[in-house]
């Protein structure tokens, strides 16, 4: 209610915070551009080859690389945005993506590629359904529930690995094309990502299901009062999240081409951070996937900067975590979203 009498007496920071909250995408893009400028200053020519005496105003190689590695991150961030809308979170996405990638790589040679892909997606879907069951019906807190299923899936993967050690791995050709190929300098992953992003944006904005995600996160009692059975929504939501994570895992497999037992796990924290930086509130009811995409790009640029500083791997990882926390905390502080 105190919102109603906001007057012009607020400080510039508060007003900036409100701008950030109401139209998160514009200042986010500005921040992204600022980071790119800093990067260019750090290493002249990396973004604009012409300054280093080479051809081209903007390096398509650099831009393509940035986008390529941001895609799986943005897809996992979609899981976080969707679940966070309902005041939830999905901490199993990293593991699910890994499982999906590993299963696909190991089954493709014996089962055939289409079948392997289907089994991978089914794995993601079933972890999602278990999450949905726990969160929506048993009412376990999403943080605990998805952390738990993530751990279980990790264990299952290790057991599974024992049995498949001899069968060898095969990375399906079309995944490799999608993950590493380029069309006019831009990564082929965009062929998957652009329809995917359009679908998520449409889902959030123009479907009844999307409406309910916002409703559950804003006020679950109000949703219940309107006849919404929240368990149905949560079940469908976490199943969808698992499916997206599995899909992201397949793409990541094509990109990295070396399945391992924690292939996509390191993407988990960045996926949460990308969502939060993109203006999604972990307390529900507010969120934007477009913001999360920009958030993912921002994180990739930051990562590049750290790489350029030529730090040891450990220090880089630690610093990356620190920056994610700092950026997120700062963002939450100035926008007043929580």
């Amino acid at each position, binding site marked *: 209610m105190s919102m109603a009498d906001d007057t012009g007496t607020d400080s510039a920071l508060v007003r900036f915070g409100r701008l950030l909250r109401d139209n998160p995408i514009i200042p986010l893009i500005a921040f992204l551009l600022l980071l790119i400028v800093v990067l260019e200053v750090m290493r002249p020519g990396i973004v604009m080859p012409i300054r280093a005496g080479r051809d081209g105003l903007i390096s398509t190689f650099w831009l393509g690389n940035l986008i390529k590695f941001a895609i799986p991150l943005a897809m996992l961030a979609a899981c976080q945005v969707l679940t966070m809308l309902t005041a939830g979170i999905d901490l199993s996405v990293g593991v699910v993506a890994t499982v999906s990638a590993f299963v696909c790589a190991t089954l493709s040679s014996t089962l055939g590629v289409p079948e392997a892909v289907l089994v991978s997606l089914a794995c993601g879907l079933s972890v999602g359904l278990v999450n949905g069951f726990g969160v929506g019906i048993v009412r376990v807190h999403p943080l605990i529930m998805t952390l738990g299923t993530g751990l279980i899936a990790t264990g299952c993967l290790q057991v599974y690995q024992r049995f498949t050690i001899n069968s060898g791995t095969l990375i399906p050709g079309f995944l490799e094309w999608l993950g590493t190929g380029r069309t006019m300098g831009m990564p082929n992953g965009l062929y998957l990502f652009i329809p995917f992003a359009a679908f998520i944006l449409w889902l959030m904005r123009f479907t009844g299901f999307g409406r309910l995600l916002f409703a559950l996160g804003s006020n679950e009692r109000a949703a219940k009062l309107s*006849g919404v059975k929240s368990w149905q929504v949560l079940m*469908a939501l976490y199943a969808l999240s698992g499916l997206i994570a599995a899909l992201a895992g397949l793409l990541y497999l094509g990109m990295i081409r070396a399945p391992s037992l924690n292939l996509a796990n390191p993407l988990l924290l960045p996926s949460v951070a990308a969502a939060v930086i993109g203006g999604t509130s972990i307390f529900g*009811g507010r969120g934007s996937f477009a913001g999360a995409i920009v958030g993912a790009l921002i994180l990739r640029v930051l990562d590049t900067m750290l790489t350029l500083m030529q730090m040891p791997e450990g220090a880089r990882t630690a610093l990356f975590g620190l920056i994610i926390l700092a950026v997120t905390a700062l963002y939450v502080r100035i926008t007043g979203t929580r």
Partner: protein
Amino acid sequence: MTDTPLLDATGVAKSYGAVKALTDASLTVARGEVVALMGANGAGKSTFVKILTGALKPDTGRIVIDGREARMGSPAQARRSGLVPVYQEPSLIPDLDVRDNLRLGDTPVEPFRQWVEDLGIKGIRLSDMIGDLPLATLRILDLARALAAEPDVLLLDEMTAALPTDLVERVLKVVRDRADAGMGVIYVSHRFTEISQLCDRASVLRDGRTVGDLKIEPGVEDRAVELMLGEKISLGARESAAALAARSGTPRLSVKSLAAAPKLQDVSFDLHAGEVLGVVALEGQGQDELFDVLAGFRKPTGGTIEVEGRPARFAHPSEAIAAGLTYVPGNRSEALLAQRSVRENIALPFSAHPRTWGPLKMRTERERVDYAIEKLQIDTRAQGEVQRLSGGNQQKVTIGRWLATGVETLLLFDPTRGIDVRTKRQIYPLVRELAEKGAAVLFYTSELAEVRLACDRAVVIFNGRVVDVIDAADADEPTLMRAAYGLTGREGAA
């Protein structure tokens, strides 16, 4: 009363922003005196109690206990000053046993045991977990704990609500004995029978002001009702002949002996299409439970609900909605998505069923939402977020939601609470219009004057039971107030 009073509170005022909850409240309690604190809903009683017990800080005013000015910064300070409260909800910690609860409050064990026994509760061990004991027992333990602290002034806030009769008798007797031994008692209650049995005086609050001090004697009930109402301008009754004619055939909603333990005991009524049935009750008489049961939020513990003559049971609000029962809760924040737009708030029920999870049907949605917005004249200038609307407009949005889906049976729980007069005047005719078009409306209101303005008749609930049914023509405020305090003998159902 020659010596200084034990407790003397004067000029107590408290406002929340622009809303004045208390403007000038006062209360004196002499040694050995039991004073009832009375007031209709919204008179400021609970604010005053919170100030007396230190839970709230007053803006102005003085509270003197036993000759010393009391600094009521916190409940602990109030206790040290010698005032100990006992509430309707016992303040014992459920996860600890009796002994630990006593230890927390520094309560001496032996006197406590003595009081528990005097109050007629047997078989309580100090190792019993609080969470395992029934509510009635907890209230008694809470009272025993308060008595063991030997307070100067004991404040009992509705502590006999939903307590078995024999225990009430015990409580009244023990409290009276303590008063006769010199303790001062403040007795907050809606119950005249208990007040006349126990109290010496009654202090009456109205609109945040102490308006009178009554000696308890035969006939005091009428004076108290008068004082609580004040001089109100008669608003004139509405004609209800048409509705009387409509009251035949199968009722839209028929409730028989409905109960939801512990507060809702036995409520029966019929609600016909075309009728607005008022529900009148003091706070906490079971009306919240009644509406929760009808809306599918709570399971009844007894009785039946029939919709159009068919028995109905609602395990979830969606089932109540499917049966045509739509609910507008008293607390708007329960019903609204604060950060979402007016349109989304009104359209929320459209997407509830999984069948409707797909693409939004923008055109039909817009048509129906616009209809509701126009009908209710909702101010949509602040399109963005509902939380930026005024209280009145927010309330219109919660009603508009069901207008857009199509109303069959509307359950309105105090829809005009805390909203401006202009909006109120829009809501009464709207409710009437809905009824004329064939809707059935159940209308709980804490403002008695509204019964005549909006309803055809009203059921009065006291202590979880229907105690009276009053036609709008006879529903002047004194009549309703007397009935709400259980002062009319007419037992029975509608």
